[in-house]
């Protein structure tokens, strides 16, 4: 369903994604784990037609995001890392807007929106402007929205960030359910290791733009001789704390140090 080979993305001199290859099968739940700045979001942007790769090959549902943008866009739903709702529209209007853009048939649309919004417990807030929502509520609405048009693949970039354990549980229950029923392929990133451990069929760990390990959660634990996925992750990616969002200067410094380190 997703095939990536030798994918590279450079921003100027800095290589954000450094020659990665992987594939995700239809109906699989795939976790893409890595510390901040590893290149996860950049990879998702390339998979979802938002960013052109420097080089490498991508296939989404049999199509190239660079050439057959339209077919690729028809294949997936996405929850971005950053918010992507219209604050000046109500929750329902945001859902409806999405339905129109994705040409979801009008018959049964109201019901479908209602069902999804009830699921994320926002139906009673359907006429509230999104700017009055809390961060968690916005997140739940985005998740509901990403499923609206029955996508074949769903990309979730840190979807559970800032959600309480109840909502997270609930959300994963729903995603797993859909994954079983509709064979939806799920590609997600998260910083909650126990989440990945529990739901992912397979995991790839990326650090500084390179995939450093891959396999099932158990395989990763065995590989590293650790007890938990968290320990395996720390062993693979080191204990140094990564900055959330590097400034331009930091980026350059980082790139410089990395180059120095390798030589």
């Amino acid at each position, binding site marked *: 369903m997703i095939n990536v080979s030798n994918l590279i993305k450079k921003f100027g001199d800095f290589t954000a994604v450094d020659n990665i290859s992987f594939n995700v099968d239809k109906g699989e739940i795939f976790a893409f784990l890595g510390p901040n700045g590893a290149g996860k979001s950049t990879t998702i*942007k390339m998979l*979802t*037609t*938002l*960013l*052109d790769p420097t080089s490498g090959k991508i296939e989404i549902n049999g199509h190239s995001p660079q050439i057959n943008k*339209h077919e690729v*866009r*028809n294949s*997936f739903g*996405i929850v*971005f890392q*950053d*918010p*992507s*709702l*219209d*604050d*000046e*529209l109500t929750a329902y*209007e945001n859902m409806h*807007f*999405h339905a*129109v*853009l*994705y*040409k979801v048939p009008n018959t049964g649309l109201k019901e479908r929106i209602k069902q999804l919004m009830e699921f994320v417990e926002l139906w009673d807030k359907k006429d509230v*402007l999104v700017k009055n929502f809390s961060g968690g509520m916005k997140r739940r609405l985005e998740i509901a929205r990403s499923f609206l048009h029955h996508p074949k693949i769903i990309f979730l970039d840190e979807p559970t960030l800032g959600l309480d354990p109840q909502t997270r549980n609930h959300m994963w229950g729903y995603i797993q359910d859909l994954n079983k029923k509709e064979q939806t392929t799920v590609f997600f990133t998260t910083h909650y290791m126990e989440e990945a451990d529990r739901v992912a069929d397979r995991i790839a760990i990326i650090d500084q733009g390179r995939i450093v390990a891959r396999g099932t959660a158990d395989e990763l634990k065995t590989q590293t001789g650790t007890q938990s996925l968290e320990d395996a992750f720390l062993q693979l990616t080191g204990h140094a704390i990564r900055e959330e969002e590097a400034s331009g200067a930091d980026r350059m410094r980082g790139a410089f140090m990395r180059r120095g380190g390798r030589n």
Partner: protein
Amino acid sequence: MTTIYIMWLRQVKRYLRSKSRIIGSLGQPILYLFALGYGLGQVFARAGQGNYIEFLAPGIIGMSVLFTSMFNGVEMIWDRQFGFLKETLVAPVSRFNIMLGRVLGGATVATLQGLIVFVLSFAAGFRLQMHNPVLYFFLAIVFMFLIALLFTALGTAIASMLTDFQGFQLIMSFVIMPTYFLSGAIFPLVGLPKLMSFITRIDPLTYGVDGLRGALTASNHFALSLDFSILVILSLIILSAGSYLFSKIQI
């Protein structure tokens, strides 16, 4: 079609919901109408140019349409920073339709804003000078819409190239303000020094304001058909350039 409509609807809804912005953006035109209208009225009359408010009102209407449409276009930087743009960019619809719906929505909003200023100008003493007010009122709306279309498209095209707000101040100082001041919105186009006369002629707003003057007070400097054609052709050119830039946006 539906994409264009839903993008249009979104822009219009956002406008109608931000009451404070509507009221806030009326402050400037009111100030210009009254301060300039009363302040310079005497000088204008003494110079033998006639009634200044009659001359000024179409200019101020043009100004508010210009400001509102440029702002609406450039507002896309906000969408880009705060995320909503991504939702439209990954949708399986043509980017040209997204951009077109957005521009038409912004242009509608700016035209509404122009109409509000038009109504307000009556309070400042402005009166229509036409025998067939209904017909010419519609012609005035057409010119407001053309100004709005041109500058919303321009704002959107510029915003497609900018990734943050830092460029916004530059646009304000080097695009919006000169376009306004050099358009003949506040002074007549007759008897200008050569250089000045040339600059006013390459300012697209000149033709918009002139068209409005023709429609509202029958005091146009150029032929209305010339004003109209220039605005339509420029709008189409900018729209094409804008849609190219928009289609190339990477996040």
